[in-house]
């Protein structure tokens, strides 16, 4: 009998029951992602800390507005990096890709298209951005193809890409600076005119609030239809009220950032009106790049949670073999993930070149590291399978807050890097500690 190994070994692990504490059970009732809540708390601590240390100059409408604009491009790209990292891959080529795509879009509108459709053509920016997005999807997809079908590790493929695309970007214009950008295109970067004004910002805020409430009601109704548990009404109402309050409060606060008098005067004069005596407050409102980032965040959240592609990305990250056995085309999914990253890089490139009103071959240097750091600070696990889009956006905001804050505090540049580096490691350390306890 000893020749046969015994079967039916008892290896039942009981699901870990965490001791319910009052706050934890409140969170469970509210059904809130506690990790996301922790990040929001960390962000608030950073904000308030810098605000106090800077003598009250950080949490001003003007500074928050700037912060939102500065965060936009990295936030857009970090949402794509989440999916890449979730599939147990990495994309180190983001910064160099950004340079190539930015350069291509700049060359199109500054040197190629004017000869064909004429300078200042209203469709100029559309063609440039569309071309950039196609190029991004192609470069990303190509790298993804090598990763998925040829089997070269993504670290190597994209490390190669980092060098290759940087060289190509230089080559495209022999190192020249390409400028200026199309007038409409420039709006994508924010700037003096690249915002939607106070009124439209309110409309966006109100639409967002309606959207939040509609989604909550819809979710509740669906779950009730199936006879599932729902949150208590008070919990739903509380979460809804807080969400709407944050959205509308944020808009109200940002809208207190007014156009400088010079620009306000110019705007009146453009409209053929007399600038009122004693000045007038015109709200800047949300900047166009911020709107783009919000739109991308919503779209990417949708893709990662409501579409089968997103489900497959997470399944591949959790267990590639299981995904394959489940009949998922895992390789093709990887290619699509990288192509999507390329598309988001193109959007980031548009924001950055529009903001600079120029493209240079050094564009986007080190951006890959900021994008990866944002995703990782946002709770994306390099082991794969875990990560959220809103987390990555918050991660981008945390990083940008630290950097802007330190500039505001007059911290030396080398020390800024040191702080950001330390925060990155601490954030991941806290996250892995949390993960060990919760699973």
């Amino acid at each position: 009998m000893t020749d046969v190994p015994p079967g039916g070994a008892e290896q039942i692990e009981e699901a870990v029951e965490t001791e319910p504490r009052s706050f934890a059970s409140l969170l469970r009732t509210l059904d809130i992602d506690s990790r996301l809540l922790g990040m929001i708390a960390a962000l608030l601590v950073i904000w308030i800390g810098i605000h106090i240390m800077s003598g009250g100059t950080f949490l001003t409408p003007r500074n928050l507005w700037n912060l939102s604009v500065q965060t936009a491009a990295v936030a857009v790209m970090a949402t794509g990096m989440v999916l890449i990292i979730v599939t147990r891959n990495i994309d180190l080529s983001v910064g160099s890709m950004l340079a190539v795509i930015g350069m291509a879009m700049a060359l199109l509108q500054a040197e190629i298209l004017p000869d064909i459709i004429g300078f200042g053509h209203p469709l100029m920016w559309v063609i440039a951005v569309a071309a950039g997005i196609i190029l991004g999807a192609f470069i990303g997809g190509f790298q993804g193809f090598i990763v998925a079908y040829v089997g070269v590790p993504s670290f190597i493929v994209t490390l190669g890409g980092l060098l290759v695309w940087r060289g190509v970007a230089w080559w495209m214009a022999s190192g020249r600076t390409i400028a200026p950008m199309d007038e409409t295109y420039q709006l994508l970067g924010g700037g003096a005119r690249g915002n939607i004004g106070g009124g439209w910002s309110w409309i966006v805020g109100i639409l967002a609030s309606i959207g939040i409430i509609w989604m909550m009601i819809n979710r509740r109704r669906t779950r009730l239809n199936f006879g599932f548990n729902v949150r208590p009404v008070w919990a739903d109402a509380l979460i809804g009220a807080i969400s709407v309050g944050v959205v509308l409060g944020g808009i109200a606060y940002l809208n207190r950032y007014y156009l400088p008098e010079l620009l306000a005067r110019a705007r009146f004069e453009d409209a053929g009106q007399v600038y009122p005596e004693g000045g007038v407050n015109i709200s800047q409102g949300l900047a166009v790049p911020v709107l783009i980032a919000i739109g991308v965040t919503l779209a990417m959240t949708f893709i990662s949670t409501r579409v089968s592609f997103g489900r497959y990305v997470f399944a591949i990250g959790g267990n590639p073999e299981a995904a394959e056995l489940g009949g998922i085309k895992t390789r093709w999914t990887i290619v699509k993930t990288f192509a999507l990253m390329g598309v988001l890089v193109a959007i980031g490139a548009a924001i950055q070149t529009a903001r600079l009103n120029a493209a240079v071959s050094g564009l986007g240097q080190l951006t890959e590291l900021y994008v990866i750091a944002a995703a990782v600070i946002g709770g994306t696990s390099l082991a794969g399978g875990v990560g959220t889009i809103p987390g990555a956006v918050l991660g981008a905001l945390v990083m940008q807050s630290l950097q802007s804050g330190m500039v505001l505090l007059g911290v030396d540049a080398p020390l800024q890097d040191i702080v950001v580096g330390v925060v990155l490691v601490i954030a991941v350390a806290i996250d892995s500690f949390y993960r060990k306890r919760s699973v």
Partner: protein
Amino acid sequence: MTTETKQETPLVDMRDMRVAFGGVHAVDGVNITLFPGEVVAVVGGNGAGKTTLIKTLSGAHKADSGTILINGEPAQIETPRDAKQYAIETIYQTLALAENIDAPSNMFLGRELKTRFGLLDDSAMESAARSVMGRLNPKFQNFKVPVKSLSGGQRQSVAIARAVHFNAKILIMDEPTAALGPLETSQVTELIQQLKAEGIGIFLISHDIHDVFDLADRIAVMMQGKMVGIVNKTEVTKDEVLAMIIMGKLPGEATQSDIEHLHD
């Protein structure tokens, strides 16, 4: 039952299956059949080739040569997707679950339910998962947590629920009870009998004859990639099957002293 069922068309008829890894013949000219409502145990020691053989049926591994007939029709099975087209469902020894996603998502992995807009219908999937699970393991309630945080038995339930939900005609279970305690093992045993009664053909793969002897109608013993023999359970003793597994000797060939050696 096997004498009568032999007359009908087998559900699965695998002929002269061969798989080689480099120079090693993992499966070397194996024939095996499975009839509706029948449980065939495929047993053998480590490296006997039983898992590889069955992987050619589940689409996880392509056979180098051989013919698979499903209901008498030749079938091309090259991917897990192909196998599912023939209503072949597999419960892998590793369970093949994505640990980071919840039970309903795992059950429907690769075959998600969609809303009329083509979006994931998580509520419908959860609902279906609850109804299947209500049958298999009524105590199971953790539908919204990653399967990572479930116990071994609960994970097994998820893997079984996946196979059962899609109306398998042919079910492959690789070491179905290896990771389970006595209570869960008896649940799986009950389930196998229930599925059998519904006319589903089941391959049970195990390295241990004690796990499957009571459940099996026929026992196929493999050794070093070859089929030692397929016997009706009613006609053999456990010891005779052990002799087949360990020595590669058919019941008639094994001597009394061989059998006694097994117990040394």
